[in-house]
């Protein structure tokens, strides 16, 4: 047996968990190796000091204090982390439902109206978009209904009035005095019919709205 093997057996020897053969081999090594013998002597004396340490006596009133505190805990169980109402999961699931509703509400609202209840309506004629200069918009709101660039009344407005859905208010607010802004004439021009596109007076300008 070499020193490394002998020192590896110190713990098992102290715990008396080595075989008889290992013990004899270790003792034979100690007889020939003073260093290992001294090391084991120090090892065993250090552990003797640990194992013979006096036991710490508990506080004399530990039982009373533990009982008193346990009674207080029993009276207020939520203070000690006992299982109560699970606020955290409930709050988290509520927040999740709210977020999901917010995200999917456009689709959900559109599908909640039964198809049978929807009035059959004829497709409205294509409304020719109106191009207004920002400077003239305010004056137009005081005048008659919107005029098309050619001076004729826009047929789209009349179609909206005769629509059965018009009886149902879309909003709680009155939109009759609203001003329409065309913010991006380039986008608008892309979908216009060719007749309107050839109209030189219908030049779009970038509108700027300040609040």
């Amino acid at each position: 047996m070499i020193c490394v093997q002998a020192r590896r057996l110190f713990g098992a020897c102290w715990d008396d968990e080595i075989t008889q053969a290992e013990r004899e081999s270790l003792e034979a090594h100690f007889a020939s190796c003073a260093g290992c013998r001294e090391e084991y002597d120090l090892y065993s004396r250090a552990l003797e000091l640990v194992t013979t340490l006096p036991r710490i006596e508990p506080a004399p009133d530990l039982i009373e204090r533990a009982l008193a505190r346990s009674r207080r805990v029993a009276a207020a169980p939520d203070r000690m982390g006992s299982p109560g109402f699970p606020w955290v999961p409930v709050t988290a699931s509520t927040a999740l439902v709210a977020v999901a509703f917010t995200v999917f509400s456009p689709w959900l609202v559109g599908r909640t109206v039964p198809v049978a209840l929807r009035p059959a309506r004829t497709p409205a004629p294509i409304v020719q978009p109106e191009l207004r200069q920002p400077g003239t918009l305010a004056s137009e709101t005081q005048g008659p209904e919107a005029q098309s660039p050619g001076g004729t009344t826009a047929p789209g407005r009349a179609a909206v009035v005769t629509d059965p859905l018009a009886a149902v208010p879309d909003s709680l607010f009155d939109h009759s005095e609203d001003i329409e802004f065309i913010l991006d004439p380039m986008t608008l021009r892309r979908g216009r019919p060719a007749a309107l596109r050839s109209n030189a007076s219908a030049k779009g300008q970038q509108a700027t709205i300040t609040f």
Partner: protein
Amino acid sequence: MARVAVDDERAFAELVRRFQARVTNLISRVLNDRECADDLAQEVFVRVFVHRRNYRHGAKLSTWLFTIAANLAKNEIRRRVRRRNWFSLDALQELVSDSAIQLADPTEGQEITLEREQLQEAVGRAIATVPEKYRLALVLRDIEGLAYEEIAAVIGIPGGTVRSRINRARSMLKRKLQPLLKKADTP
């Protein structure tokens, strides 16, 4: 424990009386702090009371108690480490060498009882300087006398790891106490 689970106060008092010494001793030796050990021992029994209905019948009660005590002691050690309010190795070496000098010199007129107390104090402080994960295994094995399997259950690590930690802790402790032991040998 079954009686404690149905709110039998006398059974709980008996449980505290039976285990208070071992729990206090374990915490005290791990922390090397008597006052704190009393408070944490009380906390152990309060937690036992709070979770009395979660106790698995058939499990060893002492293992459960030691697990709670070990966890509380570990939390306390970590709290102290965070606060940097812990015994430093340099201070320990200074104290060990002082104790060794005092023990080696009988002309100082120290009483034998006082020497023994100083020696025990030095050993307690040496244990307190062993790293936490080794220290807990060492105290459970060499002070509380638990079997390796029970220590594994308390700490929640495999039995082989328990053995290696205890061996490591014993070697560290031997190195720390070596000056004290050698000084005590000198006439």
